[in-house]
């Protein structure tokens, strides 16, 4: 079941490649705007890089969340999925995994390139990638709760951002904090541990909350 859901969503995403690509380009463009707005001093850019990349990742994940359940909701697939004998937890888990693979993984792959633009060292780039790998699943998981709650509402995309962005703050703090610690020569390990703790918490609780929210939204 889990594999089937992931595979199906990946095929759907592949047939609408433009959606995933636009999220990626949004991420690249937002990050590239900062040097233009702030100025090209390497020192300054290096110090803001972790925050900029992470904030852009949060915003980019907002774009793909609206699509997480909306298409399935419109064509009735979601109702069928709710009626399957398998636990809804697994369905949600599969959909979130597919969303992560199609929307967040490309961001992680392109992030080193953006880091180089901001003059980050190799070691810092590795930490940036590690934080993104640990942190972006939390974004997808918490975001799925927001997506399920706002399903089928007017102006749901704006609403998702209001609901979900405040809940992203710990991920932002630990994610950007780890990279920043590396830049100033401290060990990022404590941040990474806390970030992993958030990931584990979100993996356990978020699909459950999303499943409850889906049952509420689709009645």
């Amino acid at each position, binding site marked *: 079941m889990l594999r089937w859901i992931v595979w199906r969503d990946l095929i759907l995403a592949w047939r609408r490649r433009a959606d995933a690509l636009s999220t990626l380009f949004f991420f690249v463009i937002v990050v590239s705007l900062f040097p233009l707005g702030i100025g090209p001093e390497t020192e300054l850019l290096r110090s803001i890089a972790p925050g900029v990349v992470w904030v852009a990742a949060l915003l980019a994940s907002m774009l793909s969340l609206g699509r997480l359940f909306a298409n399935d909701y419109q064509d009735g697939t979601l109702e069928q999925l709710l009626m399957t004998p398998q636990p809804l937890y697994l369905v949600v888990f599969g959909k979130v995994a597919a969303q992560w693979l199609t929307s967040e993984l490309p961001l992680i792959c392109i992030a080193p390139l953006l880091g180089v633009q901001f003059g980050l060292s190799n070691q810092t780039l590795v930490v940036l990638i590690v934080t993104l790998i640990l942190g972006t699943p939390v974004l997808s998981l918490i975001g799925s*709760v927001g997506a399920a709650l*706002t399903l089928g509402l007017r102006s749901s995309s704006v609403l998702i951002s209001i609901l979900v*962005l405040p*809940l992203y703050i710990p991920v932002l*703090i630990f994610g950007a*904090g780890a990279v920043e*610690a590396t830049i100033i020569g401290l060990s990022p390990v404590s941040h990474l541990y806390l970030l992993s703790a958030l990931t584990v*918490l979100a993996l356990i609780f978020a699909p459950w909350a999303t499943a409850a929210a889906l049952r*509420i*939204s689709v009645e």
Partner: protein
Amino acid sequence: MNLYKYASPTNFYPLAGKMIPWFATPAGILFGVGLFVGFFIAPPDFQQGDAYRIMFIHVPAAWLGMFLYILMAIYAGIGWAFNARLASMMASSISITGAMFTFLSLVTGAFWGKPTWGTWWVWDARMTSTLILLFLYIGFISLQSSIDDPRRADRAGAVLALVGVINVPIIYFSVQWWNTLHQGATIRILQKPTIHGSMLWAMLIMLAACWLYSVAVVLIRVRCIIVEREQNASHFVEATV
């Protein structure tokens, strides 16, 4: 007397109407007494002069902002778990008052910060987490107001409030961590270990006044919500007309 009778909005409506004056009147009296003690009897602070007196509004507002979020989440959770409509209505009613107090504590904090620290705002751990708390309230209120079906609004709000309540300690801890790492402005609000007796009294009286005010306003608002939602139920119309 069967207390569960009052879990029905129709029965609760007249009871709430009777209870409101019992909370509103003492709230008014205590506000008067507390402000009088705070502004005229309590001595000026030896470092901050008279500027500290905004504390008598600021501190109760900040406390209530936090407590009401938890209370709102409890009510929303009860409403969702036991399908109790009145509890959900209470949660929506509390959310507005809680957001108001959180906002008030931010504004009064800014007014207090300007004369004492020389700046309206610093990214201090407490202020930042209060700001995030306000965002959480705004999320709850805007989610509920954009759902037309009241039952769905209640339940969706409950999920959000419970997720929020789990997150509040995590957010608070992470903001504190972030703040200690970015050793910017660590500010102790009360420098002195003890505060003068009349200051403490004024603060406690104001805290009680704010609590009583909250109860009164929440009851008034929940009556409005009951009227809005139950206006088509014939037994309600008969009971109240």
